């Protein structure tokens, strides 16, 4: 058995070579972004893209942050992502609790409705969605985008939570009900704490998705003061297309929080995001 997976010295070298080759494919674009974001002007970027910056110009980040409005974009992205996480965690966990643990006549129908949301991507319904958001007067508001993005994360989250809840034993709940506990208490005191690992997964999933979302803000936001980083980066690209060193700095500002979070919790990221992708 071990023989299959064990490698002798020479095989190990070959495999290491291939692994390092793919690491290079992954890391070189990031490396190019870092080096070139620190160059003083675009001429140096064009002349020697892999040369070290001379002088190291850390002020590019400050310039992008202040002059190009990245501070505003960053704030908007944070507001959107954090609100989405709070809304989705609350709405998905309560919904999943009722659907999994307190079935009623029609609960299967409700579950199937969520299933349809998993099957058909919301982007295909952009025309009616736009119509509804406009009718509600939520166009060009962060609140509207937050609701739409949260709703788009609901089906996956409900699915993950329902399947997780199927594996929690009902004994604690039954005991609490015997003592006359009402659903609010059962949910808040028993189910919610037990669901913590699954809730961490959907919180992570929602945060990453909301932070990275480009399409929905593109449709619903018009004024630049509401732009999240994804739209801000696009605006920045239209204005400063030739200022590559600034473009790289902007890209890194956008990626920064994700890279840091990924480094801190790579295991959770890999398992959580893989799970979320599978449930899409």
């Amino acid at each position: 058995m071990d023989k299959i997976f064990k490698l002798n010295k020479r095989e190990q070298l070959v495999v290491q070579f291939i692994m390092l080759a793919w690491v290079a494919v992954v890391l070189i674009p990031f490396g190019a972004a870092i080096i070139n974001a620190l160059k003083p002007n675009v001429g140096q970027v064009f002349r020697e893209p892999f040369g070290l910056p001379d002088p190291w110009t850390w002020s590019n980040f400050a310039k992008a942050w202040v002059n190009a409005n990245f501070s505003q974009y960053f704030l908007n992205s944070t507001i959107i992502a954090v609100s989405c996480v709070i809304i989705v965690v609350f709405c998905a966990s309560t919904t999943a609790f009722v659907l999994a643990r307190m079935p009623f006549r029609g609960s299967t129908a409700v579950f199937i409705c969520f299933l349809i949301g998993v099957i058909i991507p919301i982007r295909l319904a952009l025309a009616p969605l736009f119509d509804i958001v406009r009718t509600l007067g939520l166009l060009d508001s962060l609140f509207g985008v937050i609701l739409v993005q949260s709703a788009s994360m609901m089906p996956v989250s409900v699915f993950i939570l329902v399947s997780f809840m199927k594996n929690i034993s009902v004994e604690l709940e039954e005991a609490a009900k015997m003592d006359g506990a009402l659903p609010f208490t059962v949910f808040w005191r028993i189910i919610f704490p037990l669901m913590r690992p699954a809730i961490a997964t959907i919180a992570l999933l929602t945060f990453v998705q909301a932070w990275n979302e480009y399409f929905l803000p593109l449709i619903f936001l018009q004024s630049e003061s509401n732009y999240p980083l994804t739209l801000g980066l696009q605006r920045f690209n239209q204005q400063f297309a030739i200022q590559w060193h600034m473009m790289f700095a902007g890209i890194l500002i956008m990626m920064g929080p994700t890279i840091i979070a990924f480094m801190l919790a790579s295991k959770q990221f890999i398992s959580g995001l893989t799970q979320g992708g599978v449930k899409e």
Partner: protein
Amino acid sequence: MPSDTRSPRSKMSYRALERIQRTLLLTPGVLLYGIFNFLPLLALIPLSLVKWPGIGPKEFVGLDNFAKVLTQPYYRDQMLNALFQNVIFFVVIIGSFLIIGTALALLLSFRTWGRKSYQVLFFLPYPMAGAAVAYLLDLFVHPRGPFNAVMVELGLVDTPIPFLGSEDTALVTMALFYAWHRMGFAIMLILSGILAVRTDLLEASQLDGASRWQSIRNVVLPVLGPAFVLITVIVMVDVFNNADYILLIMGPEAGPLRSTDIMGTFLFRTAFGGSADTTDTNFGMAAAIGLLTALMILPAAIFLALRNLRNT
């Protein structure tokens, strides 16, 4: 038993309270999802039957939108072009996932030194925003960018290649951007498939004197079938509605000369127009195209849903 000591009246009120609280718990999630996701999906059907530029009165046209998109040359040619290019886009992505992804996952399943670190590094691009990845790679392969500079320096090409500026290479380059971004996801799915192979089967094949490659080909690869199908289905559902990279880099006109037009950009253009001065936008047509696209990916999507349902 506490419930025995209760009077019938308080028992009733417990039931009633329970029902009220259940409803209160269910309402926020159902309303949120219902209004901003489920209702728009349902509204695709009535909206596909009208002609409506997005503002003003709606004109009922029956199945005219479907007839137009399937027969009228202006729409039909765009649709066929987008569909054809979407298939190429999909094939390039899935091909690179299955070949490179399987190879890397296999190598990671061996006792490779540092395989935990490699897993993390390979996954690194996946959590990044599509917008940031799109611009990063756009600059990277630009004629004046780092990649072309190195190729010219090494003498591999005489003049820089405009990967995204030429009709011949733009679509494939975009697909490779997608593959670069999501390769970690494919690797992880295939790797977990390999790690789930039953060790007794492998042992048996070893006892029968199979070489390593024979064991891999006859025991490991067949078991990976479900993982391959899963990846194919996920990517199919995604690329037939999501056109973020192309919208970001090329805009809704999907240049050069619509050579990167796929269903997502075609749909966007139909609803909101290719540029600010477009006048022929039609929300009804966009709904019809959305429905047709939904029908196309429905088999794949239902397969995915049933699989998830079985797991729950």
